[in-house]
């Protein structure tokens, strides 16, 4: 394992990307991290039910929720930064209205869903719909009218994972045996339902192009062209459940790169041609324990992988390890890049959180003008 006193070690031959860090501590394991679209706010949730909001412009932090004991498992800011949501063990949707930097967030009354532990909820990109997986239903809370949307998606099993397409017009939802694609904006259109042999634990639409990736419990990966309308490629033989996915926002030769995590493996997929065998895997074997989270830096061909082994790997677009970040003895659970692609937040399994400024590597810097300034 690569260790250095600064908590960051550069792989031989490259200049360190990471210079200094900010960190803090919650009571229990960090379950989720989320940045506001303008990069001015970072929310951090824990398995002990804490929700911490860091407001970088005002330079202050506030514990929005701390006196509860029920885990929070999914959090997120609406695209316009008006709302912050959290769901978890208590089975309620929690919402706050954000008045802007320096203004105290205002909590809504919790909305009970009566469907047990909630762990999947996602805001629509560039919209105000929030999709919430509530048992065998996917419900939508509409921020424009501040109430539940009349339509909902019914599934034959418990909804496991949700994802919006980049244009916000399509919502994918998975349960055991089915992948459903729904356009909630068109009430006349019936959801498209595709049978699957297993269940998708992770879903992700590509930010460019129209691809939907599904990480399956049966150790396979499904890749749907045309945002789920075509026939999927299926890739089997992963060492374990495929539990995390991340698309690059950099256009590739035919499609952007896709990173996939199963057990301690990260596999980088790239499409070389349009044939059946056109997708080529590149295994990135370096982590020693389960990889918990993957994220590509926005605007850069830079991948971060977080593992229970207590390290975060930073990889270039071709799968070369650039740098290792250390978790001070804790396994990593969650990752989130700031929208500027220059700051990476991570959460540990014993409540510690970190924020690293990540510099642009030398070669890439020549093509970019962005600095590593913070806040």
């Amino acid at each position, binding site marked *: 394992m690569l260790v250095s006193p600064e908590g960051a070690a550069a792989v031989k031959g490259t200049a360190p990307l990471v210079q200094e860090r900010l960190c803090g501590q919650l009571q229990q394991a960090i*379950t989720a991290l989320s940045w506001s679209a303008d990069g001015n706010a970072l929310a951090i949730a824990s*398995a002990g039910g804490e929700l911490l909001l860091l407001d970088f412009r005002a330079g202050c932090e506030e514990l929005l929720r701390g006196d509860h004991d029920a*885990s929070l498992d999914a959090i997120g800011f609406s695209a316009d930064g008006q709302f912050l949501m959290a769901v978890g063990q208590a089975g309620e949707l929690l919402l706050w209205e954000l008045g802007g930097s320096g203004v105290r967030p205002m909590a809504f009354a919790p909305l009970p869903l009566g469907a*047990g532990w909630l*762990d999947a909820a996602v805001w629509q990109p560039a919209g105000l719909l929030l999709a919430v997986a509530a*048992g065998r239903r996917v419900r939508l809370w509409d921020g424009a009218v501040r109430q539940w949307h009349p339509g909902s998606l019914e599934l034959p099993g418990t909804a496991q994972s949700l994802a919006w397409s980049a244009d916000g017009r399509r919502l994918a939802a998975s349960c*055991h045996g089915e992948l459903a694609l729904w356009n909630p904006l068109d009430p006349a259109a019936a959801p498209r339902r595709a049978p699957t042999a*297993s269940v998708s634990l992770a879903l992700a639409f590509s930010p460019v192009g129209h691809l939907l990736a599904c990480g399956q419990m*049966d150790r396979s990966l499904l890749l749907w062209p045309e945002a789920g309308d075509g026939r999927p490629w299926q890739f089997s033989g992963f060492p374990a459940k495929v539990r995390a996915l991340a698309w690059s926002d950099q256009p590739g030769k035919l499609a952007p790169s896709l990173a996939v995590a199963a057990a301690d493996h990260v596999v980088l997929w790239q499409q070389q041609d349009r044939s059946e065998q056109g997708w080529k895997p590149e295994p990135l074997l370096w982590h020693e324990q389960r990889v918990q989270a993957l994220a590509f830096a926005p605007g850069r061909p830079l991948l971060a992988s977080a593992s229970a082994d207590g390290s975060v790997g930073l990889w270039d677009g071709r799968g070369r390890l650039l740098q290792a970040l250390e978790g001070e003895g804790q396994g990593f659970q969650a990752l989130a890049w700031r929208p500027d692609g220059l700051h990476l937040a991570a959460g540990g*399994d014993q409540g510690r959180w970190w924020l690293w400024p990540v510099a642009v590597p030398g070669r890439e810097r020549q093509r970019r003008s962005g600095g590593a300034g913070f806040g």
Partner: protein
Amino acid sequence: MAFTSAVPAADRLPVTVLTGYLGAGKTTLLNRILTHEHGLKVAVIVNEFGEVGIDNQLVIDADEEIFEMNNGCICCTVRGDLIRIIGNLMKRRDRFDHLVIETTGLADPAPVIQTFFVDEDLRDELRLDAVITLVDLVHVQQHWEAEEVQEQLAFADVLLLNKADLVEEAERQAIEQRVRAINPMARLLTTCNADAPIDQLLGVGAFELERALSLDPGFLIEEHAHEHDDAVGSVAFVEERPMSLDKLGSWLSDLVAERGPDLFRMKGIIQLEGKDERYVFQAVHMLLDGDFDRPWKDGERRCTEFVIIGRDLDTKGLRSGFNACVA
């Protein structure tokens, strides 16, 4: 398929599965486990929300959902809701050190048990401690024909004959005999209001191979094939001559391939030809696990003891198959 984990048992969180037909006293027992001063922090997963609720205790509702992982293969049938909920719960590991799962009264226990052996995450983070089945002495006779009742008895490691204060002793004995015919290897406790000692319920280690047959020493002294005509029953074999591991292995793999769905549980201590150690073995449906245990002790009766619990067992065929495995 073997069901061992690479992670040592001591590093995994113990799980107790609580089954029993409707009204058998599961909620009473759960409340006892949650309020008893046993020094354990217990988390409970229930299916009927609201019935159990004690301040400052971790009680979580789950919606029983069966996942068929592999084209309906019975040993790959698991509880998908448990995989998800326990995955979330394990991030709160410091909040509890024992997990109890209550199944609904009509549940087949096999998918719950198999979840802890088939799912890669749960297998490495948890270990099944025991299946506890509550038997309602007052009403069990009315439900005896229900498949679920017989399956719940068959899969048990600990059987509580509950509500003993409400039946005559003669009736209790008759029920005990009938229960024993189905499951001769479970620890049997007679209770009123599910008042069994907690140390007989939690920390049993019934699925740890070395303790697989130690619950009730001496239960196999006599071979038996019982007279009851229930669909679910058991056969037990005792053999003084040493066995052949190769023959036993191929007999068992053929047996589970052909009859796996009807074979609920098997346990055995085997005396192998030319070996000073005991070989211990157990199975749940098609999941098999076996390993060498301790050496035979001086003065210990060296013999093979083997129990099969299942549905519509062909005692004669099993006997001749077993006999053919003598070295």
